[in-house]
């Protein structure tokens, strides 16, 4: 059994495992993904972090219409929808939902969660600029989060516990980075779809299991040589690539392209940088999770994100960029009108901008657009 097959089995059993842990007194802490909740704080309190990252289905979006207006980001609406529908273990099991308030979409989703009493929630703010006072604001926010988790779990997050959790998460990040950098090669057996599967799994399974899986996978990759892939190399970027929202990556790979790097709210932002272990842990977490974090589109300015994408495009020998936004995520929508020209001027590369509301009717037109884009690059 290879590493990915083994991971699939662990994923299938994870809900039962979490049930058992919960019964044994462990707190399950759900969090909104996006790279601003330090899982280390949750782990250091003996609680279990799980990212709420389901998406890609239309029914939860429709259901959410009774709680939220339709002009809110599709992924945010989905979170309310999945919670209301039930049946998703992650959403049903959590004792607390941690939400880093980033932009209005996330704020409004959190408001709906609170107003409709969908479960206990803890919010803390993420400023939109990288200044000293913004850093202090974020640091204060995660310190309050620590107190909240400590109260919830009944276990203190000592510096020793925090350092241990940071070391574990750093190991996971290091392995993700290593695999990610391997994707610069055309002779890699791992597909973009496989890598995204790993990223999604990391929000759900036990950290130690994830580290073991990644270590095994690296050994497998290093022992296997394949013929170089010849199709166009695609950088996928946008607001959110949720678990269950596989259509874009599938369509790219079915059209003969290969997704070789992804920059979304979850994933790269988390693993690209380690947390320092030589200072005070809370400050080190704030340094990594806020000050050095690759910025999203809602940061001001968002040039850092655009420059980073250009750097990725060059380093990963990209042939084209697919900018995948979800409906009504304003920051990404406006940036999508600016980025293609900036990328073209800097690298000559084309960008395809697409948007989704998790509607099944979208797949046909998206297939046509993606196939045309891939063909255009090939030509």
């Amino acid at each position: 059994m290879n590493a990915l097959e083994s991971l699939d089995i662990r994923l299938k059993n994870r809900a039962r495992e979490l049930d058992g842990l919960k019964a044994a007194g462990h707190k399950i802490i759900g969090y909104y993904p996006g790279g601003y909740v330090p899982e280390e704080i949750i782990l250091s309190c003996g609680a279990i972090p799980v990212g709420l990252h389901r998406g890609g289905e239309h029914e939860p979006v429709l259901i959410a219409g009774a709680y939220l207006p339709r002009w809110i980001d599709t992924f945010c609406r989905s979170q309310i929808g999945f919670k209301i529908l039930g049946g998703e273990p992650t959403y049903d099991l959590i004792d607390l939902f941690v939400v880093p308030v980033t932009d209005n979409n996330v704020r409004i989703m959190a408001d709906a969660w609170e107003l409709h009493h969908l479960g206990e929630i803890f919010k803390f703010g993420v400023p939109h600029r990288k200044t000293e006072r913004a850093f202090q604001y974020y640091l204060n926010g995660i310190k309050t989060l620590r107190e909240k988790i400590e109260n919830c779990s009944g276990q203190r997050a000592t510096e020793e516990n925090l350092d241990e959790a940071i070391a574990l998460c750093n190991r996971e990040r290091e392995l993700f980075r290593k695999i990610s950098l391997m994707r610069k090669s055309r002779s890699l057996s791992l597909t973009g779809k496989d890598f995204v599967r790993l990223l999604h799994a990391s929000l759900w399974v036990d950290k130690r299991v994830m580290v073991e899986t990644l270590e095994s996978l690296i050994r497998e990759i290093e022992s296997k040589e394949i013929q170089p892939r010849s199709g166009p190399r695609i950088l996928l970027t946008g607001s959110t690539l949720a678990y269950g929202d596989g259509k874009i990556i599938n369509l790219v790979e079915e059209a003969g392209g290969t997704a070789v790097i992804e920059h979304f709210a979850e994933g790269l932002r988390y693993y690209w940088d380690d947390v320092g272990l030589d200072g005070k842990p809370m400050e080190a977490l704030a340094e990594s999770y806020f000050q050095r974090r690759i910025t999203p589109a809602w940061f001001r300015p968002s040039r850092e994100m655009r420059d980073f994408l250009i750097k990725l495009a060059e380093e990963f020998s990209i042939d084209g960029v697919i900018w995948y936004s979800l409906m009504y995520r304003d920051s990404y929508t406006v940036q999508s009108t600016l980025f293609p020209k900036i990328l073209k001027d800097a690298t000559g590369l084309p960008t395809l901008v697409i948007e989704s509301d998790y509607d099944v009717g979208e797949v046909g037109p998206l297939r046509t657009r993606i196939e045309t884009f891939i063909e255009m690059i090939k030509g």
Partner: protein
Amino acid sequence: MYYADLLKLCGWEEEQIAREKPRLNEAFRILGLGPDEMKIAEDRVKEGYDIDSMGVRKALGVWIGGLVDVVLSKTEGKKIVYYSYPPLGGLGGRISAMGKGEILCVCPEFIIDIVLGAIFDTIDPIIEEGEDRALPPGKALCALNKIRVGAITKGIIPVPDLLLASSYYCDQGGQTDEWLHEVYGVPWVVLDNVMDSVWDEFPNLTPERVSYLAAEIENGWIEAAEILGRKPDEKHWGEYAGLYGRFVAGIAEINSVMKADPPPMSQSNLQLVRFLRNATSYDRFPDAVEAIDTLIPELAQRVKKGTGPLPKGSPRVTSFLIPQRDHIVAHLIEKAGIAIPVTFLSYDAYTGMLDSTYSTIAEKSAKTDLSRGLYHSTSALLYWTKKAIEDFDLDGVLWSQPIHCRPMASSGFVLKKAIEEELGIPVLILEVDWYDNRVFSGESMKTKIETFGYLLALRKSKGGTNKGSK
């Protein structure tokens, strides 16, 4: 002078028209407003606004003068600063006060929306230009931002020397400023804050939010002054606060008069007056104060006589604001027999008191901004709306729910649930765009409003009130 009749209708004196003739000729040429457009505007003003009131006419005149100022600002050698709507921290006003006569600091899209939208009805091509350039249609994006981009790219208003942007409350505004910053190389100053308060925190404020916003205001002020080659001086804050205080006191007085039954004037007129604070330059601000000073005794006189656009005893509602692009929406509501004595944005004049627990002007400004509720949270918006229901003895809420405004996106949902459950009074949500009337159906709106009016009247006739009627 083909524009003289319109300007007189809008409160301009003949002498003023003659004095400003060269400016008016040039500005109207750039704006493409000829005799035909003036005639249409006259008809729209007569049909849409209360021209029996000199206060309202003067307010209309201030808006037109404000647009002329923006259009000509570059050729008149002024430094130009644009801030996006909504204005945060009063920074625009302070910069305006700092550069009296030399710096024009305005929210241009708001001025354009009222003058070229509500008065002249020539705004759609500007919005479409903004859609072509930066903010595509069909994605529920704000028409104000489209107007800012469209008016600049069409050359109707000049490229500014500085942009005052916000990176919180409105994501689109900041994004649009960044677009202009990148495309035109305009320097920008960004104000940040974080809307992370817990649901029931308001009216208390977390000190961290106040101090973070205060530091951003203080820093923005210093940065902006440096870019404009000025020395920041607290006396400018004081000057602005003095004039602003007079304006806010006037709005509070209007609110007080509007509690009468029947309310003495249609809300479509009062919005025109109230928004003067948010858009015009400091140099035009004394005219805005004069419009208010003229209006207040007129309203008091009507209250004394017991007159208003609707009969005494008509159902009374509040809204966030009534779409301003077209006065027709306010009139649709009144034709359905519903009076709107107050809107959220006029009610917030009550809340603008400075607090002595904060020592610096920036802290006081931050505290005031957050206390007004809008920039605090949706729960704060609910808090003030409930207060307004009590204060104005309202029978319902007719919430104009914007489809383009992400910060306000959930307000209708929240208010409907909370107000109907807690106060037992009906809430109707009307999906609109406040600044762009291309995106909603007047007919569908009319049906909803008429039905709501019928329901409110029936309820009222059976003795249903906001107090304990549930």
